[in-house]
């Protein structure tokens, strides 16, 4: 069964040694290939920890992770995923082009092949012409596009994103959301996306995994059945608001679900 899943998370728990904090408890989740799954939840629900466990950047205390049919550790060593963080993590001493080429250099691609791929990636994130700039010469949104280009440069099947647009202003964020969906369609990769924003999660995802804190666990999984491809109009679709409300209710805890207020609305 895990052979069919892009990511398979089985009874994963994580306890941090300091203070016996249970960050994650018995998480079970399967992500199918080409899915766009968002993890959403309040601070301390362990969503970033779960993303890092999938990326083998943190070891789980117990449980099993399968990525692309391998253990998370093997998947990391095989460079099976690309990752984007909240800060772009670009290296100031490298130009935009050489930042994008970094994973290719490390994978041993020759110069000509690297240059060709960097050109394609710059086109993909619409930054052609900026290849010889340095990161500090770019705006926050442009830096994050470079980070996405770098994460996808070696065509990983899986893209892990940890609040990639969290530090950007609302307008840049919406533009990059639309751009990310286009890139997702064009590359056909699977995305695991961590966010604080309900609207962002609903707009982007095929499924939204709502998590609750202390201990971190999955509260609810909301299928997002909005039509693809999604556009600016999607945000005005009544169904979009219904789903936003559904995710919000799930976030505010099971006890609130089916509250009188919601019944009246129905």
């Amino acid at each position: 069964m895990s052979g069919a899943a892009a990511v398979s998370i089985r009874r994963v728990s994580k306890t941090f040694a300091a203070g016996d904090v249970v960050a994650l408890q018995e998480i079970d989740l399967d992500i199918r290939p080409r899915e766009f799954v968002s993890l959403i939840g309040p601070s301390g629900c362990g969503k970033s920890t779960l993303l890092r466990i999938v990326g083998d950047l943190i070891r789980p205390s117990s449980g099993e992770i399968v990525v692309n049919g391998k253990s998370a550790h093997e998947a990391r060593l095989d460079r099976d995923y690309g990752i984007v963080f909240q800060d772009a993590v670009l290296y100031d001493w490298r130009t935009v082009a050489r930042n994008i080429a970094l994973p290719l250099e490390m994978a041993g691609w020759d110069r000509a092949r690297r240059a060709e791929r960097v050109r394609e990636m710059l086109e993909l994130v619409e930054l052609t012409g900026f290849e010889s700039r340095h990161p500090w010469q770019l705006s926050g949104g442009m830096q994050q596009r470079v980070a996405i280009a770098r994460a996808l440069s070696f065509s990983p099947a899986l893209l892990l994103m940890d609040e990639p647009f969290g530090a950007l202003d609302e307008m840049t964020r919406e533009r990059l959301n639309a751009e990310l969906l286009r890139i997702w369609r064009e590359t056909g990769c699977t995305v695991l996306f961590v966010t604080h924003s309900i609207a962002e999660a609903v707009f982007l995802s095929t499924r939204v995994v709502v998590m609750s804190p202390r201990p971190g666990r999955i509260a609810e999984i909301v299928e997002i059945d909005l039509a693809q491809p999604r556009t600016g109009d999607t945000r005005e679709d009544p169904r979009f608001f219904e789903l936003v409300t559904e995710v919000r209710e799930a976030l505010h805890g099971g006890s609130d679900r089916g509250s009188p207020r919601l019944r009246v609305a129905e």
Partner: protein
Amino acid sequence: MTLVAPVAGERLLGRTLRRARDWAPAAVVLVLSLALWQGLVAALEIERFLLPRPTQILKAFWEQRDTLWSAGLFTFREALGGFAIGCTAAILAALVLARWRRLGGALMPYAIAANAVPIIAFAPITNQWFGLLNPLSKMVIAAILCFFPVLVNTLRGLTSVRPSSIELMRSYAAGELEIFRRVRIPNSLPYVFSALKVASVLAMIGAVVGEFFGGSQEALGVQIRSATALFQFETAWAAILVASLLGIAFYLVIALVERLTMGWHPSTRTAD
């Protein structure tokens, strides 16, 4: 950003003019203070063994330029040797301490405490160890003076890397060595260069002071001492001038290397 590229020659001219405008205030201050010095020494009739006039110092410098320059270069070689030894040792030590953090935790408090020892007071001792005439006795003083600032700064540069930077490298299956090569070492360069600039000046000071406690007749420090003993104060001042010029030149060379190797760094860019 507007990127209207002007003709190359025009840009060079513009840059030279801008540079000249940047330096003009400093040049005015230099000329004014030399004039003030000259005027006050004459007006207050200060004895020449207390403070000679700038013109007298320049005259002494010109008359003994060959001896002074060869003495200066002799001392500069000692400073350079000490700089090379001290900085190499410091950078290697920083790499080891950054790689094995626990070792760093165990050793750094003592390194910082040792830094408080007035190293120059050891000059008579190193003269004893290596011999008065052996340049190594001065190099060791210069090397020890250079060691600590370079160690502390390099270590900070190697370790002050954002955790996400390291996570990104690990996501590419990078090992420790590759993380050093691609992230920690480039990240440390601005820190290393500011330490090297400090060390360049310290190396010259270390060498000259080491010579005060005895050394070859060719050395600048020895010449300063014997000139004052013979009441040739203009010569002593001229020798100090030579030492300063060499120290400044050394500093500028390192600043130039910094600019060339770190064109990428925001701090090395002028607003253009």
